[in-house]
């Protein structure tokens, strides 16, 4: 039977990693396990279950800072912040519906380790941009810290950035400090109906270059838009633009945005409540929910230059049966492909090599994720550098070996 080790504190974590080093064992580093089906499936000797490292240890709203043990449920932190009218501005997405798991299960450590971000990414940043300080145990079994609890800090290398998005392959985070921000007083969303992908991305670029100060810009193709819950679903493609801020400002900017968009297509304004549900749905990829009509499809998440989004979509559509949704003004492309032998990898990577950016295979059967590179493959000096970075934290490859790339 595979061992599950459940540390009670940071010292337990260090003891577990030291044991693994001494016994030449490997560890699967897990928070609540909500993202276990993401990345390459790994075969490890034991699971390091961090769900016992819980609790907010510091929250000072006026200083815009919160510290918590890494296994603290994200939902608990978001509720606490909401009680002071604050939030994690990077709008961490919830992979639950995409992966066919219950929603709201993630931990703060997991959110940071996978560098989550939501629709506000282009304005407010990703998890990496809000990650101020960390204590962690490296794959060498050594406890170290980086950063601090203040928002402005350049003392030493910014290891938080490196740990954000490292998928637990470098170090086990035990305590984290993040920046918190005030929630917008209100929000509203303008919908433009019926645009094809290329026109929609042009419309978003136009709005993003205006002074309207968007905090969301997404386009859902027809089948995806049709799956939105309740009254949100339009029978046609939908381009959504969100404004947030103080009431007077949102009103003022909405007027300007409507004027700007009038000639593009029929417009519809969503009230704050509808707007919130829409953006949660977009954030969590509801249109591609495992339990929905696209449940059998393979899902790729592609980051590209926003102005290349439509072209990327066209390249995919020319070669495959694909459903598309665009976020970040076109810079984030969600592509749901009909099942294929290689998960559509060849087509996706070819399109990305033309348009720039990188693609991650988000949803596919485990056997496929074991066979097909899940993360963008690296080559040459960059691949060698990545391997040396791994080596500098985890020379014996104890932590999540192979989760990102074979050998790392």
């Amino acid at each position, binding site marked *: 039977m595979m061992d599950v080790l459940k540390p009670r504190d940071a010292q337990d974590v260090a003891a577990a990693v030291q044991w693994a080093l*001494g016994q030449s064992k490997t560890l699967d580093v897990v928070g609540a396990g909500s993202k276990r089906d993401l990345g390459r499936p790994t075969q490890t000797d034991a699971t390091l279950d961090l769900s016992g490292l819980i609790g907010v240890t510091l929250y000072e709203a006026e200083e815009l800072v919160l510290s918590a043990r890494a296994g603290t449920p994200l939902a608990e932190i978001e509720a606490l912040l909401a009680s002071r009218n604050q939030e994690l501005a990077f709008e961490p997405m919830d992979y639950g519906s995409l992966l066919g798991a219950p929603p709201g299960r993630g931990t703060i450590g997991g959110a940071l380790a996978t560098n989550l971000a939501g629709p506000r990414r282009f304005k407010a940043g990703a998890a990496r941009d809000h990650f101020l300080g960390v204590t962690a145990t490296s794959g060498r079994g050594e406890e170290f810290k980086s950063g601090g609890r203040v928002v402005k800090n350049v003392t030493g290398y910014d290891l938080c950035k490196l740990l954000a998005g490292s998928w637990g392959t470098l170090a086990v985070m035990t305590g984290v400090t993040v920046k918190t921000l005030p929630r917008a007083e209100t929000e509203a969303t303008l919908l433009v109906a019926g645009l094809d992908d290329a026109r929609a991305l042009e419309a978003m670029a136009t709005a993003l270059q205006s002074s309207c100060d968007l905090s969301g810009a997404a386009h859902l193709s027809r089948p995806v838009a049709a799956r939105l819950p309740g009254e949100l679903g339009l029978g046609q493609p939908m381009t959504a633009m969100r404004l947030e801020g103080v009431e007077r400002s949102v009103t003022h900017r909405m007027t300007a945005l409507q004027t700007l968009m009038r000639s593009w297509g029929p417009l519809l304004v969503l009230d704050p409540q509808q707007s919130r549900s829409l953006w949660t749905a977009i954030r969590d990829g509801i249109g591609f929910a495992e339990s929905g009509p696209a449940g059998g499809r393979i899902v790729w998440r592609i980051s590209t230059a926003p102005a290349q989004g439509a072209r990327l979509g066209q390249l995919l559509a020319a070669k495959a049966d694909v459903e598309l949704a665009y976020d970040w003004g076109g810079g984030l492309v969600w592509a749901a492909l009909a099942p294929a032998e290689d998960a559509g990898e060849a087509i996706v990577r070819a399109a990305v090599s033309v348009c720039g950016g990188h693609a991650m295979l988000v949803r596919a059967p485990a056997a496929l994720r074991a066979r097909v590179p899940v993360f963008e493959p690296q080559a040459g000096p960059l691949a060698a550098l990545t391997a040396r970075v791994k080596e500098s934290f985890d020379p014996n490859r104890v932590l999540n070996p192979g989760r990102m790339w074979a050998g790392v």
Partner: protein
Amino acid sequence: MQMPELDAGILARRDEVVAALRAIVPGEGVIASERAMKPYESDGLTAYRQLPMVVVLPDSTEQVARVLRYCHQQGIKVVPRGAGTSLSGGALPLGDGVLLGMAKFNRIREIDFNNRVAVVEPGVTNLAVSQAVEHAGFYYAPDPSSQIACTIGGNIAENSGGVHCLKYGMTTNNVLGCEMVLMTGEIVRLGGKHLDASGYDLMGIVTGSEGLLGVVTEITVRILKKPETARAVLIGFASSEDAGTCVGHIIGAGIIPGGMEMMDRLAIDAAEQFVHAGYPLEVEALLIVELDGPQAEVDDLIGRVEAIARQCRAVTVKASGSEQERLLFWAGRKAAFPAVGRISADYYCMDGTIPRAQLPRVLARMRELSASYGLRVANVFHAGDGNLHPLILYDANQPGELERAEAFGAEILKLCVEVGGVLTGEHGVGVEKRDLMETMFTQTDLDQQQRLKCAFDDKGLLNPGKVFPTLHRCAELGRVHVHGGHARFNDLPRF
């Protein structure tokens, strides 16, 4: 300040090295005469001076790669340099090293409004980026006070900030990608015009790495649409405690101003005498709070900030009525360093960050230190994010005063760490705070950082002597120590 030991073997071969470098970078790109190298002997931290062995000014990535490959093969140290405005000695040359000046990398390669990015060479000045996109109503958000002179390459290396970084972030939040040459001469590309890295966020590590990981040869920065309008409020307080409380209340009310700066009495007086900005003189602390965005939003928030200020016992409150007046409010703050320079022969600029609530304690302790060192201190403060710039006034011509100022400065930084803050908010560690790193980090913390350095620069040739108080060989650092004593492990809950 102890710098790495000079390599006599390299110095003995100086002529040969210079000739080899000339073969890579022709003409005036290699400077070897003492007189011509003089301008490079220090950066903005002028207390430290050192002539390099030779200055090289490459103008292509290819040349940078060849220079680095050659130096790697020969074991020659290299110090990259932008405009030399670092306030921590990051660009201080080494006597047996090559100073690699990036000034010729001064082209803006591409402006791409559709993707809202600009692709620039590292020697382009910070301000030049904003100027290049101004015609379309765009700008580059990080705005260090040195922006006329400092380069984007230097900004990346130091992760520079500015008065607007509370709302718009530091350099690291505003860059998307770069081309970088490793010490081996290998060229890597990180990021691009898209958001977030695939794989490890190496761009995030390179930003703020103080020129120790690689030489950056191209950068993709984000450009933002300029806010429709901006207005500032000038608020005077009878005590810095009241000013600190006011800052907390503004943020507590959910307002993130575009800029929020504080000055103490000595700084206010010096600035007012210098630029006549209309600052109140009878106050102990002055806040400048700037709101930006659409007119309707700005007017609304200005009203709210004024009300909060009055609740916090402000003695004067004045909102700018025109763009001219807003600029005047800022003129005093922006000239604060030179203004202090007029009332003292020399000044030494510090850069710690503290949790904002600790401000009264830190200021009180600073007053005690000021008395015991017999040196005045003026405070300029990025109030929103707790970044303090105490300016210690001294006279370098008085024997012992520089040393006293440095000792005073070190005490202030230790105090910042003691109250939960950090040694440097935006100026970097460099040589200046190198030996204080142990007040913030354990040896294990520092060893892990140095291992990362080894992943980029296995021989430790790129900008050595900066950031880390002690240098270890990479081979030594790489050893894994398996600790005995599994008592705790045996006790670990398992399933």
